[in-house]
């Protein structure tokens, strides 16, 4: 595998002159050799039939980065991807640079990036091999060389034995991997992936996450990955950009987005179960004190700017960070509550509880817990997030 990795990695940095002469011939000012972003989308705005799909979005990616654009359908993430690939012409854009070269007026077929499409879009009238070789055939590569490079890419996705098969003879997972091989073969500077594993079943999805991550590390290529699944984003990415209604809501490494959501939308998207409207009482250092109904809670401030006391904020805590006890330890947030039903989930138990500030869901990993009716729900200040509304 090592040999294929070097050839792909070489291309991934955009240094070879073969398929992207513009890059080598005409490096623009500001594109330093080291550390300059391989992808820069500056101030992109796009409108479909009067609906704003992208609202002044700026995105950059470093060479070799695994960047995930996360968002619900309609958030503008696919539009952003199609702007990068050139399949969509932006309504207005400051600049769109690939490897330091402005490509905003370069047609899609001349851009040095390829896409793995959501439904793969494998050509039904061609064999697996012909599909994978397509990017080379249109560049005028000789059949013998084509075959070698196609087999190399198919080996990377463990499908070199299916070279002569027709597309309709493949399973969903195999089609997904052929689509990946086809996009890798022209050795693009950036690989764009549009929800590539969304159509696969659960087990296959988990396997493909691992496989994609491995291929990314082996090739060192820049991946821009689109998904609506926070789980996929967290497992694979170096950096996540969360989008909503055509705007970037928050961006950062997975751990930062997971543990420090900037506002209610991010927190709820990242699966924080309890989000409570609160009034900020004081903010000191990293910690914020706020009032939720009758209770006073302390947590880490994770919003962007620091508001003044009295501002409306949101307090968030995850179900698995809540504990149940008869007596709470010192220096924690606590709420007396009345225990409700329990839902057995196999690995854990979800217990509902009725507290003064509303219903709580408490995830218990050891099922032999207190079964009394009255209990105290408590959680550490470190596990409590206070964010913008």
């Amino acid at each position, binding site marked *: 595998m090592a040999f294929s990795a070097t050839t792909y990695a070489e291309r991934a940095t955009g240094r070879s002159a073969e398929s992207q002469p513009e890059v080598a011939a005409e490096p623009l000012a500001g594109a330093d050799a080291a550390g300059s972003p391989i992808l820069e989308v500056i101030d992109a705005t796009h409108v479909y039939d009067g609906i704003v799909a992208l609202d002044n979005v700026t995105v950059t990616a470093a060479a070799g980065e695994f960047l995930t654009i996360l968002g619900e359908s309609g958030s503008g993430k696919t539009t952003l991807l199609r702007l990068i690939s*050139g399949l969509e012409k932006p309504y207005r854009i400051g600049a769109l640079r690939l490897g330091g070269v402005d490509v905003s007026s370069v047609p899609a077929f001349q851009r040095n990036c390829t896409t793995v499409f959501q439904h793969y879009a494998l050509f039904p009238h061609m064999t697996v091999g012909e599909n994978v070789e397509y990017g080379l055939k249109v560049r005028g590569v000789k059949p013998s060389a084509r075959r070698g490079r196609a087999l190399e890419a198919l080996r990377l996705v463990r499908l070199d034995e299916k070279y002569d098969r027709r597309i309709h003879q493949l399973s969903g997972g195999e089609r997904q991997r052929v689509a990946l091989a086809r996009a890798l073969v022209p050795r693009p500077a950036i690989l764009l992936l549009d929800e590539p594993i969304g159509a696969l079943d659960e087990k296959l999805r988990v396997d493909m996450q691992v496989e994609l991550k491995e291929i990314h590390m082996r090739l060192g290529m820049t991946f821009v990955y689109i998904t609506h699944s926070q789980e996929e984003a967290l497992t694979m990415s170096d950096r996540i950009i969360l989008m909503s209604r055509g705007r970037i809501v928050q961006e950062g490494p997975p751990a930062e987005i997971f543990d420090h959501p900037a506002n209610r939308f991010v927190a709820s998207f990242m699966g924080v179960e309890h989000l409570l409207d609160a009034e900020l009482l004081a903010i000191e250092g990293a910690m914020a004190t706020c009032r939720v109904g009758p209770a006073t809670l302390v947590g880490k401030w994770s919003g962007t700017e620091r508001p003044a006391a009295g501002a409306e904020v949101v307090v968030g805590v995850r179900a698995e960070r809540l504990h149940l006890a008869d007596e709470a330890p010192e220096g924690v947030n606590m709420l007396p509550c009345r225990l409700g039903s329990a839902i057995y989930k196999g690995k854990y138990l979800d217990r509902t509880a009725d507290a003064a500030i509303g219903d709580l869901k408490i995830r218990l990993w050891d099922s032999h817990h207190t079964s009394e009716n009255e209990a105290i729900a408590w959680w550490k200040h470190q596990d409590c997030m206070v964010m913008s509304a």
Partner: protein
Amino acid sequence: MIAASARTRSHTRLAAIAARLSPARLSVPTFLAAWVFFVILPLLVIVVFSFFQVRSYRLVYELSFDTWQSLIESGRWMIALRTLRVAVTMTVIELLLAFPFALWLAKGCRSKSAKAVIITLLTIPFFLDAASRIIIWRAILGTNGMINTALMASGLVDQPVSWLLYSEFAVHFGMLGTSFPTMVFPIFIIISLIDDSYLAASDDLGASPVQTLIYVTLPMALPGILAGIIFTFVPLMAAYIEPQLLGGGFVDLLGNSVDSALQQLRYPMAAALSTVVVALLGLCLTAFTLLTRNRLDLSTIFSTLRQ
């Protein structure tokens, strides 16, 4: 024991007969029977008729080769060749005109209302009587027609251009509008069915628009192109209105020859000419099928159009 097994055997035999009579099994024989009765039988009657004779306007049921002999001796077989030439020429012209148009209509035309209007306009040749539509061209192409009047008035020519009407040009010209929709529709439908993501994928992988056309659009549109060729070519082989109205007796094609033979009550001649049409069509379609068979697996192409 023996009686029981005999009973089972007769029971299974009954079940076998019942299974053979089920609707699913009967559908193919029913179709074949209907097709033979409505299509093959009349054809056979036509072939047989060509071996009868007409004496003093009465059909004489006596076998003879007179009709066929006169067909060959009078040089009327040339009509068959001319018909073939005209039909092939027109099919090629229509294909060259219709493919870009269908491609634009299916993928290039963004306005839904414009598309609807164009499709409606294309059906006009189907709901207007062919003769009344085509006879208009006489007033336009004739020596005193619009074009010649305009040419003379502008001083470009000092004598009317005579080959505009009652010529092969006029016949071809008249066929242009009639045969266009039959070529456009199948191609338009198949290109509409090609998912945009295939074209996007080709573009994305580095194919220029021309390469996408050659490697993706054309192969995927092939079933529609073949259907368009057949739907256009077959009626052209039997065309009779255009040669009759615009040929002015100078352009005899099989279609109008059959028509005039029928009007002169020369049924065997009409039957013989019709036999030639059918035989030529059969030959052409067989050759066409053999030519395209290896390049095209219709069943798989259609099955993969839906994703």
